[in-house]
């Protein structure tokens, strides 16, 4: 286990406008092995504000992982991804696209914008929970992230 995570909970930013999905994600992460703090942004603008700690998000923790939906009001997920990957301070944060779209166009566009991985939301609840747990296990137990990105 990563010693960093033993020290503090993992910060996850979920950018999702569907409260049902927010709830499902919360449920799935509630009994996670790794301690975590799930932050929610309901639209793209809010997500960018959170990442840049603007306005009401002043002083929030820098996320270790962003779970990004593509279909978002105000600023869509693709724009958020683009801005993040063009921002030197944000580009090292892994972005997992978590969306219902299985369109080839969206998938290639996301990877072209340097998304770290692309996951289509499973229709089945059990599958969904399994995917969230797999994300958690993979990004926080298996993957080594650059220390420089942490604060």
């Amino acid at each position, binding site marked *: 286990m990563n010693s960093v995570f033993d020290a503090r909970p993992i910060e996850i930013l979920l950018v999702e406008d*569907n409260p*049902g*999905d927010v709830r*499902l994600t919360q*449920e799935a992460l509630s009994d996670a092995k790794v301690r975590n703090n799930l932050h929610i942004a309901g639209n793209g603008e809010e997500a960018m504000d959170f990442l840049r700690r603007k306005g009401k998000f002043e002083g929030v923790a820098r996320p270790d992982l962003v779970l990004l939906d593509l279909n978002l009001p105000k600023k869509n997920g693709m724009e958020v991804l683009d801005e993040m990957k063009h921002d030197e301070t944000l580009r090292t944060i892994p972005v997992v696209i978590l969306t*219902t779209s299985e369109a080839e166009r969206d998938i290639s566009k996301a990877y072209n914008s340097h998304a770290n991985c692309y996951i289509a*939301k499973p*229709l*089945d*609840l*059990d599958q*969904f929970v399994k995917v969230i747990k797999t994300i958690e296990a993979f990004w926080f137990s298996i993957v080594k992230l650059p220390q420089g990105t942490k604060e």
Partner: protein
Amino acid sequence: MGIRPKVHLCVFFAIISALCIALSLGWILQFSNQQMLRGRAQDEANTTLFQMATCVHDYLGSHDPKYATLWEQKNALFFKHISVLKKNFPGDEDLLVVIRQDSIKAKLLFAHMKDFPGDAKAAADLHNAARTITANISMLRSASDRVFLKSLGDACLLILAFVLVIVCVMEILRRMTVTLHHLEQQSSARRQAEEALTVERYLMNNLLEHTPDHVYFKNTKSQFIRLSRTLAEHFGLKNPADAEGKTDFDFFEMPHSGQAFDDEQGIITSGEPVIDKEEREDWPDGHVTWASTTKVPLRNDLGNIVGTFGISRDVTDKKAALDALQVTMRKLEISNKELENFAYIASHDLQEPLRMVSSFTQMLKKRYAGKLDSDADEYIGFAVDGAKRMQRLLNDLLEYSRVTSKARPLAATDAERVFTETLDNLQLAIEDAHAVITHDPLPRVLADEVQLMQLFQNLLSNALKFQVDGVAPIIHVGVRAEGARWIFSVRDNGIGIAEEYFSQIFLIFQRVRTQKEYPGTGVGLAICSKIVERHEGKIWVESEPGKGTTFYFSLKKAPGEIE
């Protein structure tokens, strides 16, 4: 007249010539026969005279009276000959008289010698008389020969002259015949030309008077030379001749009149026709008609362009119908597209809220099963099942709509490879069912590879699924050529389908068996049907309940593989 009278003439002249020649020959024959008779008479007279001379000689030697008697006999014979000669020699009568006189003299001398056998003078006279007679006979003979030769020569000359005359006459007649024939030919050609001209005239008149198309001839200035009645009527004229000398500018408005003029001048300059051009005709009262026009250069006998001629057909109604059809087609296309779009969007967008329903009913079941009353458990169970089923339906509907929305272009595809990949995908299901799957070597076809795989997969899945309990599926995929297509077959030993359901099974959401017996949405075969349809092929089924099912579908052969 013609060739027949000429033959008659020839036959006539041939008969005349033959008659002439026959007459000439007859005359010559008769003449020579006469000469022969005369010659024979002369010969006999000669012989007789010789015998008479011999008698005289012998008599003079022996004075035997028997010679005198003999002489008498010969002399009588001689006179008979002389009378023959006389009859045939009217010209030599003088000589015959001399001969006769000598003969009488000899007769008298013989009589004298009978009485005075020793008279030497009489003997000498008799001798001389005999000699003179002989000489005169010779003369008579040569004279006769001369006459014969002269006559023969005359006859030949006559024949020659006659032949010459005949030849001349025949030549004159021949020339007359030739001239006559020539004259006759000339007049016949003139008559034929006149007839042809008459035919041309009525053909042209019929065309211009009765064709429903607009036909016109124009000079190099695009002025009408001739035009069909229908076109004149189109222009509002009673008589087509009224349009002669006028141009399109007198009847149409711009831009059509200008465009037509430019087209015609272009044809005159280039010699290139304008074919089947769709023209918008603008009329002075503002209304518009449409015509399909072909214009061609008008050439004279020397091949020089002296104007244009054209045929145009009014296609206003047709054009309107076609436009309407195109609008309808376009609408239909849009509506089809919208429908496909709708199916895609509906199935896609409905998934999202349904996922919520499904997830949270499952969550309910997970958290609260057994904690509420038994009714609640049952209700939650129905909700979870319904939501799951609806998800499957939407998923399949999405799949169905993707047959057209996610279609890739058809290309030469190795069906063998695609089939092998399909078997790999179905490996688990095949093993679970303990199925035996065999197949013919599969050919190359014109197909969308992904859809071909989907087609194989759906048909094989069906064959695996609709199986009698406890019986291992035996499936064979066959293929045979039929013209430019391959007919594939997927045969199983499953439960079979009654004939009354053969067409129904290919419709979307149509199911023959209950959900409980064989779960499914009833989209699989509809997708198959849509895929095959998109490949311009056919799909059909042959089956009998309890005896297995064979699905057939046809696909085009890959380009270059058609014999």
